[in-house]
């Protein structure tokens, strides 16, 4: 088994993003969270029409502008300049969060510190007493999107698993996550617990369970 683990090469972030992008159906309305999930935008398939929502009032958000197109009145949730696709619309924050909280977005892709076996999500604060809290729109996406996908590495820098029995960090939302895309594979959250949906070549379920330190079943 240690041989297998040695042979195994975790997915890169680009590979994780590619995998998420491939799972988004044609016509889906998707909100991509700040940070690691932003990579997903680079891999959206050209043969599908996928509409990106940005919490600050965009539906139909386009890619980064060329340097001479930059307009600081047209930014994304991460405050970076973006563009608008043909057919896109601008609206105010009230309508934008009505979309989120009212269940009108098909998929939200969020980063996470921890995901619990019951779908609880912790992604906005650690227990560091010196940290300054900031929550933004994460809690609205967590409760509102029809499907919440998490994109994260399986292990912290200290080697602790981010898939947990109970979140120890402050919660973002309860029972909201349906799928987790990690560098160690794609894991669904089901009434029966974590279920491995796809694993990187060279990683078997036993090795995954060992690393995650928590039960992940075969699909």
């Amino acid at each position: 088994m240690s041989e297998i683990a040695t042979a195994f090469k975790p997915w890169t972030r680009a590979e994780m993003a590619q995998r998420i992008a491939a799972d988004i159906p044609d016509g889906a309305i998707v909100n991509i969270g700040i940070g690691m999930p932003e990579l997903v935008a680079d891999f959206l398939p050209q043969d599908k029409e996928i509409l990106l929502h940005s919490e600050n009032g965009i539906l139909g958000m386009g890619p980064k502008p060329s340097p001479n197109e930059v307009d600081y009145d047209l930014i994304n949730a991460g405050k970076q300049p973006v563009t608008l696709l043909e057919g896109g619309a601008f609206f105010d924050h009230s309508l934008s969060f009505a979309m989120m909280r009212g269940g009108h977005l098909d998929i939200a892709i969020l980063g996470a510190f921890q995901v619990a076996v019951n779908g609880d999500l912790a992604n906005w604060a650690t227990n560091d007493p010196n940290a300054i809290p900031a929550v933004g729109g994460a809690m609205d996406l967590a409760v509102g999107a029809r499907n919440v996908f998490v994109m994260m590495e399986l292990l912290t820098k200290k080697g602790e698993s981010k898939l947990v029995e109970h979140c120890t960090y402050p919660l973002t939302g309860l029972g909201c996550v349906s799928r987790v895309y990690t560098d160690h594979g794609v894991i669904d959250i089901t009434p029966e617990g974590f279920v491995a949906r796809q694993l990187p070549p060279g990683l078997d379920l036993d090795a995954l369970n060992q690393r995650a330190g928590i039960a992940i079943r075969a699909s």
Partner: protein
Amino acid sequence: MIDKTRPDTRSCVADIPDGATLLVGGFGGAGMPHELIEAVIARAPRDLTIISNNAGNGTTGLAALLAAGLVRKVVCSFPRQADSFVFDQLYREGKLELELVPQGNLVERIRAGGAGIGAFFTPTGYGTPIAAGKETRQIDGRNYVLEYPLKADFALIKARRGDRWGNLTYRKTARNFGPVMATAAKVTVAQVEDIVPLGALDPEDIVTPGVFVDRLVAIGTGAAQ
């Protein structure tokens, strides 16, 4: 590729089942989706619940739907009008249930349904028969009534222009309940005057972004009569 346009009104309402709840746009005739209602009458689902500001004027639109005997219950703010004789007769004969909701609570309850709000405290109606039996609370010295969201299986609305993503603009006071009703149904159907190419609507002027619209059908111009 997203294409929410439909070739005719029939295909827009073909899956409305018996017992469905329908949000129907319009304030009087303005914004009333007459052609979609005609298609519903042709399909003839029974025991409908209709949520709309009025309960029909004259013999067309909602009044025709009521006259066809397809409606069990009406939730509205202003049923009694000079030309609401269809509703009046059915109501007096006991053939229609009526839930009377003050107009501002009606639109706010629909908004709550679309915006994921579980309930809200409104000052409107406090101390009146409308609030009888409802939960009340004093907040910051003012009295409020707790009201709950209204949602529907289908919303039928009328807009001015639309594109294949479902983006909509409206025309004058025919806008009224359309933008809010579009948010609060499982399936929102808009009849528009014209379907325009994607990108033809100014992104600053789109009133209903496409995410709220499931089907749209072009009817041609002509204000309500």
